[in-house]
């Protein structure tokens, strides 16, 4: 997808212009070089970026979503559709004037709806429990699977159901899940300076639409002992919560 986007819009027009100025004998060589460069660029998409040597701050603890400071899926969807409408209007106006238009592709609007619905599912976990040490981070999400990244591995986990890639870039933890049908879910986690807030930015993309769906959530620290109940994982009954033995102010 990155490759496709890189070769759309104005960049393509400029490239086309420059290409016409090159002597015909060298065009073949140029084409070969461009193809090779494109292949290299696409090939490297599967390799996660290197882990930064900058030590990650401590993300450990319990976090709960702060709905007041987080995006709502509906608002994001409205905003995306306003953008789509603007884009359509620009295209129509350009067509009426007979001028070429090189804006981003619109893609399938149904797929965009589907991405928004998926976003609701993906960002559903309202509670996070993060364990972190010098070797790895584990982000356990309520009612979902944990995002785990170990510093001493390739950062890739591949199976028939999908590919998971992770890395620390010096400021943020990245987790990218690529599913076999093309759906791509990318999470980025950042911690505030004071360590009391955590931002999760989730981007969903699909080959069926040119628009990504991005949603940001802010999480605040909380102390599970002050919630009035506590939960433990058991082998026989799964997650068991109790109000007994919880410290109350």
């Amino acid at each position, binding site marked *: 997808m990155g490759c496709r986007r890189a070769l759309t819009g104005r960049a393509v027009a400029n490239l086309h212009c420059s290409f016409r100025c090159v002597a015909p004998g060298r065009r073949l060589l140029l084409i070969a070089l461009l193809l090779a460069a494109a292949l290299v660029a696409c090939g490297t998409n599967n390799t996660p970026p290197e882990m930064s040597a900058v030590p990650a701050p401590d993300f450990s603890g319990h976090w709960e979503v702060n709905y007041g400071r987080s995006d709502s899926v509906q608002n994001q969807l409205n905003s995306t559709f306003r953008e789509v409408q603007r884009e359509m209007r620009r295209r129509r106006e350009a067509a009426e004037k007979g001028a070429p238009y090189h804006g981003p592709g619109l893609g*399938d609007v149904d797929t965009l709806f*589907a991405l928004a*619905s998926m976003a609701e599912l*993906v960002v559903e976990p309202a509670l996070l429990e993060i364990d972190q040490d010098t070797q790895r981070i584990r982000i356990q999400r309520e009612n979902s699977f944990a995002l785990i990244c170990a510093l001493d591995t390739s950062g890739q986990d*591949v199976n028939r*159901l999908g590919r998971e890639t992770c890395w620390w870039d010096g400021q943020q933890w990245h987790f990218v899940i690529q599913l076999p*049908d093309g*759906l791509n879910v990318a999470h980025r986690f950042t911690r505030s300076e004071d360590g009391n807030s955590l931002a999760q930015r989730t981007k969903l993309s699909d080959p069926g639409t040119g628009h990504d769906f991005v949603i940001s959530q802010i999480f605040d620290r909380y102390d599970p002992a002050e919630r009035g109940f506590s939960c433990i994982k058991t*082998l026989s009954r799964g997650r068991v919560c109790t109000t007994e033995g919880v410290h109350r102010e």
Partner: protein
Amino acid sequence: MSLSARRCRALVICGLMIGLIPVSGCTTGVFASKGNQRGDEVVSTISPAPVEPLMIGDGPLLPLLDVNVVIFDVGQDAAEDEALMAVRKLESRLLPGLLREALVRSDQWGAVRVVPNASALAPVNIQATILVSDGRDLTLDVRVSDVTGEEWFELQLAETQAQETEADNFAGLSNLFYVVSNRMRKHWLSRSEEQRARLISTADILYARELAPDVFADYVDSTSPTLTLKREPAKNEPMLGRVRRIKNQEYLFCDAIDEQLGNLLELAGPTYLLWRQAAIEQANWLDHYESMAASRTAGQSGGAFSRMQSSYAAYRSYRVQEQALLELAEALEGESEPVVLSVEDAVFTLEGTLEAQYATWRELLQEIFLLERGGPL
């Protein structure tokens, strides 16, 4: 080896099985077997068989044959995959318990013990390697041999669960091991009573030779490919009495391990079954997805949301189950409970992995034996 390669291999195996035997959901069978050194049971071609009923005897075959079931080998292909290795380690301890149960149920053998290593503690050792295990397909390579070095037989056992509902208990896995007991019975009965008694005596002498090589080395002829008994010690040989006492102490250790493995089945069994069910569900979903993908390219397409949702749900479900099992397996790995045993008025606590505990215990018994006979430590 990547998961897809393993899956591919499993599918090839299943393909062979499906092509050769009638399949109805769960498939269990023996699909390859190799002969022994005596050449009296040589089957080298793939020969699938339906589930065999367990042959239950009227009583144990005489003379009583004790059997060691060695904790299974996790296989080579799991080494590079942390999650797979954790599951394999768990299976390597759960499955021998089921094999032991099948042998005990057959009511044809003496004491059947699960042990960390093959040894002369019993005349016969059953060793197995997990070749394929991905939740849906399980393939084991099982070798049965006796202490003289004779290979009784080697089998590849395979089980495929097509529906997750069939993987909610251990019945399918237990049935897999019936054939091992049946083949052992056939082999054991093919020997004369004298040959059977001789094997049991050889095992006793070999055990004694491990403790006191200087005393018992001459009793066994080691020049031929299989060990043979040259002569038997006198019944009233005092050293044999000491060996027997030490052997009984080793049985104590095995009993303690047996108890631990029983607890493991109770503790980890339900999670292991859940993992199997999830793996089957995902594998079936993926097959369905691949056929859907093929039809999409032919022009038929489903809704975008249902496509994305089913793809994400399958991935999420698989990860959740995998992580639950990994967590459990990590917690259990190498954390066998300390074994507390009392011997000669002293109490010993053995800690560490099962293998380490067993090695320590054997060293301890050897020291006691040497002390008793008055030799140098």
